């Protein structure tokens, strides 16, 4: 924890100064309580005794918000992701908190009737902004939700760290600029996952090169994420020399995918790319597509919205919905599978009694970034508002590097991860007692998506 130690040093300096300034007045810089304490040496990794936190720590607690889809068909997405944040909070609190300040969580759910909903997300973001003790937010999960939330967080200067958003337009100009018009120079959003411009082509490479398929049928769910990842998949697959036999868009209200797949099957595709998420129809598309003559055994490939890594039986998980149709399905996840921190998975399993989800480790990393930024910001923070602003400024500073469970992370000027990963998974229906589960295939690392070519 590089910044943990630096932050602690900074805090010491402030406390010494405030102690020297006397306690007759109520200085805005630091509380008298902090001045009276012995010099704190707490870091998130380890601590000593009782440390009285600074003035920014009102009531002894600050909160990390989570803004994820937690219910219904999204359970397999949001719950394991939020658990990553809960794990870090419990570890930090067990070690004495951040400079003596305990962490709490403010959980928001953007699922409406079981499916993520941008308007619900925007409302939740306003709730989090209004909760002054929230110093940073982990989320959201879905790109469409992010686009509704970033203008709010940008206006309020509240940091969002998304473990899972992948749509290019969320951060990258010209579209990305339209979401941060309130403070174009003070971005409020960073993300750890690889954007679609990497995830879509990775799936295309995998289908064409690794699986040796030269023709594909592509169907998307008409949403921000689905269309984006579908477009980048199609571009790469064609560039490799493959044929896209048909491209369809079907809204999530579709109740019968059979005619679509029947039309596509007549063109004899060797594979299918499901550009979307399971709750927005790709689960039903997989299930029904498999029943169409000619498509019973060909590989179906999906992005992380399909590869939720939930074993069969988990509520709303792809394998649960598709059942036997989930055999021979492949998926990409915009996060590293093999973590540099090998204590994460055992700690997660011990606390929650199951394997982590696709983005649990990334959410844990986001929370680590918030904690490291808070530790650094505490040096100058005088109240909750300045702590919140300090966390934002430190997290988005492209000069900073954070040590996290995902490895060393840094973000470019748009908030994109400069060293993104893609992990590949496939289904194995013999796992999870015959209900099926995802197995890891391989992972690849990439360079900054915004680096000038």
């Amino acid at each position, binding site marked *: 924890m590089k910044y943990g130690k630096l932050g602690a040093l900074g805090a010491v300096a402030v406390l010494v100064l405030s102690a020297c300034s006397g306690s007759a007045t109520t200085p805005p810089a630091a509380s008298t309580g902090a001045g009276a304490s012995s010099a704190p040496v707490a870091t998130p990794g380890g601590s000593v005794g009782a440390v009285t936190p600074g003035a920014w720590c009102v009531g002894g607690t600050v909160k990390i918000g989570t803004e994820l889809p937690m219910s219904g068909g999204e359970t397999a997405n949001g719950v394991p992701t939020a658990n990553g944040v809960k794990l870090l909070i419990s570890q930090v609190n067990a070690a004495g908190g951040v400079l003596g300040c305990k962490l709490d969580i403010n959980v928001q759910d953007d699922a409406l009737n079981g499916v993520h909903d941008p308007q619900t997300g925007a409302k939740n973001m306003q709730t989090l902004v209004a909760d002054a003790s929230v110093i940073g937010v982990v989320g959201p999960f879905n790109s469409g939700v992010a686009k509704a939330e970033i203008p709010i967080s940008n206006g309020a200067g509240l940091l969002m760290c998304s473990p899972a958003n992948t749509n290019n337009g969320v951060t990258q100009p010209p579209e990305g600029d339209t979401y941060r018009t309130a403070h174009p120079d003070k971005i409020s959003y960073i993300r750890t996952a690889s954007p679609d411009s990497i995830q879509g082509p990775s799936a295309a490479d995998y289908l064409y090169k690794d699986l040796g398929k030269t023709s594909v049928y592509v169907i998307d769910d008409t949403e921000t994420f689905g269309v984006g990842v579908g477009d980048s998949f199609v571009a790469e697959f064609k560039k490799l020399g493959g044929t896209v036999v048909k491209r369809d868009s079907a809204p999530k209200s579709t109740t*019968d995918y*059979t005619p679509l797949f029947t039309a596509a099957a007549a063109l004899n595709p060797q594979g299918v790319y499901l550009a979307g998420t399971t709750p927005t129809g790709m689960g039903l598309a997989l*299930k029904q597509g498999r029943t169409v003559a000619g498509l019973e055994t060909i590989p179906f490939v999906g992005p992380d919205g399909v590869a939720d890594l939930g074993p069969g039986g988990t509520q709303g998980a792809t394998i649960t919905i598709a059942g036997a149709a989930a055999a021979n399905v492949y998926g990409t996840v915009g996060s590293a599978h093999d973590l540099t921190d090998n204590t994460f998975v055992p700690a997660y399993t011990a606390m929650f009694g199951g394997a982590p989800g696709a983005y649990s480790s990334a959410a844990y990393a986001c929370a680590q970034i918030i904690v490291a930024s808070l530790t650094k910001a505490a040096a100058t923070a005088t109240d909750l508002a300045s702590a919140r602003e300090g966390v934002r400024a430190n997290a988005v500073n492209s000069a900073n590097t954070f040590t996290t469970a995902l490895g060393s992370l840094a973000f470019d000027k748009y908030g994109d991860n400069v060293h993104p990963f893609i992990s590949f998974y496939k289904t194995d229906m013999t796992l999870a007692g015959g209900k099926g589960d995802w197995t890891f295939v391989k992972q690849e690392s990439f360079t900054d998506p915004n680096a000038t070519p």
Partner: protein
Amino acid sequence: MRSDFRGIARPLGIGAIALVVEYLLLGTQQFANALTLGAIYALIALGYTMVYGIVELINFAHGDVFMVGSFLAMWIMTTIFGLTGPVTNLLNLVALLAIVMLATMIGMGFLGMFIERVAYRPLRHAPRLAPLITAIGVSFILQNIIASLFGPSPVNFPQIVPPDKFVILGSRIAYLNLFIVIMAVVLMIVLQLFVGRTRLGRAMRSTAQDREAAELMGVDINQTIAITFFIAAALAGAGGMVQGLYAGSIKFDLGFFVGLKAFTAAVLGGIGNTTGAAIGGFVIAFVEVYATVLGYTQWSEVAVFTVLILVLVFRPSGLLGQQLGERA
């Protein structure tokens, strides 16, 4: 309700021509898909049209009755019979399908009667807007009851019909498609016979024509209307069951869009006319599948409602509806 066998030659002619055109445009495989989808729409559309015919109420909860039917069938299959996968013994399969369908239809029939009793009958003499609002209320109540019982995520429907296919005209069609179409046609014929040939059917037709006069002739209006709701909901229940078998997963908000399309089918066919509703169901399914075949999936709903608007502009009473002036 004008659904006796007199004058049925014209609708049958229209239906036959429509089917031939559909087949030529779609080809065997997609024709089978359109017929299956049409059968499901038709089963629901019949309920809209019967209820409208007799009490002049657009029962907006009907789509949700269909959805509840699919959940009831799912519950019967999994909880009572413990079914999870395909049943390979043909005799067992037929028996199971018959029992589940009968139980679902009876269960849903009573639900339909119950809804009519508590939500519509007390408002029978209220302004027309009032029962419309309660219908929307019932729709929300049904959705939320199912969402709280089974959760808001998609729920698996046991695929008890094996996914086997047979070859016809060079295309491989699943036996399930055949079953759904045959079942729907049989139910429609039974309905026609019931409405056209039985005492209760005659009571329904007379109530639809003139409630007061029917009452003076000794028809029990309350009973007749209750039976109409029973039949409408039972048909929706059968539709819900086949939707589950066909799609393989069901969801609490399934009834909204399917119900809207079935309602469109009923209006298209001429609301109040049962034969029209059946034909309307197949026409709507055909338009939807044809839009998909042409590659305009995103526009399939637009196409469906465009057809509705065109029909209403040029034939306000629907394909088979009669010009009835004010009352229609």
